[in-house]
């Protein structure tokens, strides 16, 4: 049954991808991207990878769609005709696809417990992480502790992306005089948004601090919290949103999150451990692991929240300036 569902979902994924290729209306393409991400998230759920599914839904379908729409508001919604020849690119794509299929021929059989991925490193994570780290969610144990250095790097990637967008577009200046609402007359939207936004923020906090026990963690929480403010900005207008969360503050927060993460690692130096060794953070190693993971997840959450929101601000303010002209 599970395989049947997978096949169905993969088929829909292929159809969506083809739609993306052939459609010229970029607005529709962005929507299809969102659908593509949701379908991938479903596949991940079906594969029991709920953490990944959660991230895919929040980042791929949620925030990416908003950012791409932001881009469209700056560039226009019709794809330009390209003057490129299509023969060589087609050849490259076909070769790449053929290589990928060739590579699957010797692939370990799908879902077999004897596969190398289940028999080597993962085995220890499953057997020893409850004693060594003490978290019910092993995914969090792996990404925050065993491979915490990767996650620090990923946080730096998000930070670098924010720096890149800020250097290109700049942050909006706070302008108290020009408070105008994006959707002035939509009373229903305003009321609904006012009810939903506190709940979204509450949910973000739950996802942030419950990541040790269930699916979730800093990445998802940061994105969800940013989504709450983005919703506010969409309904009540960017100037009001920038008064609630100031652009300058966001820039500092993005930096602070990375510093909190790396600082937790450096704190281990002074307590006699290696970089990011949380065992030494408390008298009891498991308690130390727990403390370390909460701290670094918080760092991730803060940076992701601030980076996503400042990227949105940058796009939105550019679009507003364009509209005024």
């Amino acid at each position, binding site marked *: 049954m599970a395989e049947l569902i997978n096949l169905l979902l993969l088929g829909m994924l292929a159809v969506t991808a083809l739609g993306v290729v052939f459609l010229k209306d970029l607005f529709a393409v962005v929507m299809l991207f969102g659908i593509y991400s949701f379908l991938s998230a479903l596949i991940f759920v079906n594969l029991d990878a709920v953490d990944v599914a959660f991230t895919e839904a929040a980042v791929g379908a949620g925030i990416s769609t908003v950012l791409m729409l932001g881009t469209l508001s700056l560039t226009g919604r019709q794809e330009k005709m390209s003057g490129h020849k299509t023969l060589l690119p087609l050849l490259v794509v076909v070769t790449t696809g053929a*290589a990928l299929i060739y590579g699957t021929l010797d692939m370990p059989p799908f879902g077999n417990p004897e596969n190398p991925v289940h028999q080597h490193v993962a085995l220890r994570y499953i057997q020893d992480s409850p004693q060594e780290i003490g978290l019910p969610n092993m995914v969090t144990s792996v990404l925050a502790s065993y491979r915490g250095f990767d996650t620090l790097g990923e946080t730096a990637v998000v930070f670098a992306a924010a720096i890149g967008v800020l250097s290109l577009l700049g942050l909006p200046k706070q302008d108290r005089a020009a408070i105008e609402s994006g959707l002035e007359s939509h009373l229903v939207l305003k009321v609904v948004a006012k009810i939903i936004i506190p709940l979204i923020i509450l949910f973000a906090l739950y996802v942030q601090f419950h990541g040790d026990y269930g699916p979730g963690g800093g990445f998802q929480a940061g994105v969800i919290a940013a989504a709450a403010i983005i919703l506010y900005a969409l309904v009540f207008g960017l100037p009001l949103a920038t008064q609630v969360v100031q652009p300058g503050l966001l820039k500092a927060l993005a930096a602070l999150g990375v510093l909190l993460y790396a600082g937790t690692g450096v704190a281990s130096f002074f307590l006699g451990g290696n970089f990011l060794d949380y065992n030494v953070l408390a008298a009891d190693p498991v308690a130390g692991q727990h403390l370390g993971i909460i701290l670094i997840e918080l760092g991730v959450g803060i940076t992701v929240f601030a980076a996503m929101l400042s990227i949105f601000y940058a796009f939105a303010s550019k679009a507003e300036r364009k509209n005024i002209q």
Partner: protein
Amino acid sequence: MFEQHFLILPIVLPLMAAPLCILLGQRQLAWLLATLVSALSCVISVNLLYAALDQGVLSYAVGGWAAPWGIEVRMDAASAMVLSLVTAISTLVLIYAKASIEKEIDSSRHTLFYTAHLLCLTGLSGILSTGDAFNLFVFLEISSLATYTLVSLASDRRSLTAAFRYLVMGTIGATFILIGVGMLYMQTGTLNMLDLADRIAQSGPSRTLNTGLAFILVGVSVKLALFPLHMWLPPAYTHSPSAVSAFLASTATKVAVYVMVRFIFTIYGVEYVFHNMGMDLILLLLAIVAIFKCSFMAMAQSNVKTVLAYSSVAQIGYMILGISLASAAGLMAGLLHVFNHALMKGALFMAVGAVLYRTGSVDIKAFRGLGKKMPLTMAAFVIGGMSIVGVPLTAGFVSKWYLVTAALEQQHWLIAFLILLGSLLAVIYIFRVIEAAYLKKPDESAASKDIKEAPMLMLIPMWVLALGNIYFGLDTTLSVAAAESAAQWLTQSSMSVGGGQ
């Protein structure tokens, strides 16, 4: 107390300094912090290089988790050599940048420039230090994103298209590497490089591993601008701020060469890549085409930065040629050229940046008569140029010498001849610039302009690199010992794993 943590510091220091720059928010302070952190990383890296030459290999378990369960930071002569080079160049470029970016980057973006530079340094150090294949990809992403930002910072609007082009190509390259690493993981269940090497040797070739290798090599080739995947490089180096061109030309592609060496020699092993898959012939052909095609392209350019950019693609050809010889001597020559080429291109791009600073142009016409007006800058250019050509007593001569010897060792007379022929082409494109500077009279309009020598802060780092070209041409003890030890270590480990079966 920090000595046992030296291995991780060249990554952690710039990583923490980057957000601090944002918090400081003031460009002078950001410059000071970036330069100090970079210099400190450099001192630590050189320390590590001597330790690695002494002890062979250094290892550090991040998070206290032993490999392969945790991520290992691992340093041997090859990584320590390139790391010392990258941190040293970064320090010199930062000193140079203070004056240089005044005229090329809008002053409100200077803090962002230093932040992006530090992030790029973090990524490059991470790639060089890590012993984990996926971790390498993460740091590659940090350095790439920071690089695109750096390129786009120039006030010249063409830098935006150049950065975008670079972003698209670079992202495809990175995705290919990720797919390759995924296939490796699927087949072996591990990401640690040494563990991967063991398990690949045990399991032997398979279609999945072959495809993984193909994807990784193509992806890395985009990153190191191997012909014909180099199309992003000339516009990126031409339109980015001069300090960025100098930094990227002497570090980013070099680190990508290192990544290729790592995957070929440490993870897959010479046996697998060269004997089973026959990659040596493909790399060799592409390298030779790169040397000739791009040297000719360099001759046809009027923008001197573009000349140097095409020359970079050609010089990368020499490094790949060394690797493709599949011998310890060839690899050593390739690595040595990585080191020496960084010195040359750093000096050359800095000299061109100084010309841009004073004249506002990098067209070859702007160089006319500069031999008299900017004597120190042009002298540095001449030294760097002679090193590119491979004139004796310069660093470039040493690496060409070892390359030719490595080719002759395997009786590849034709290859040795082609290497020498390629150097002659370099004479032409470098001499065009020198001729303009010393032998041609400036235009009437330019002659009346009062052009002064570049400021001290630009001249000092430029001359450090120029003198480096001469020093490492005369006293090769350190560079050759490091490259030799690196090559020996890499080929030995790869032979012993392959031979152990």
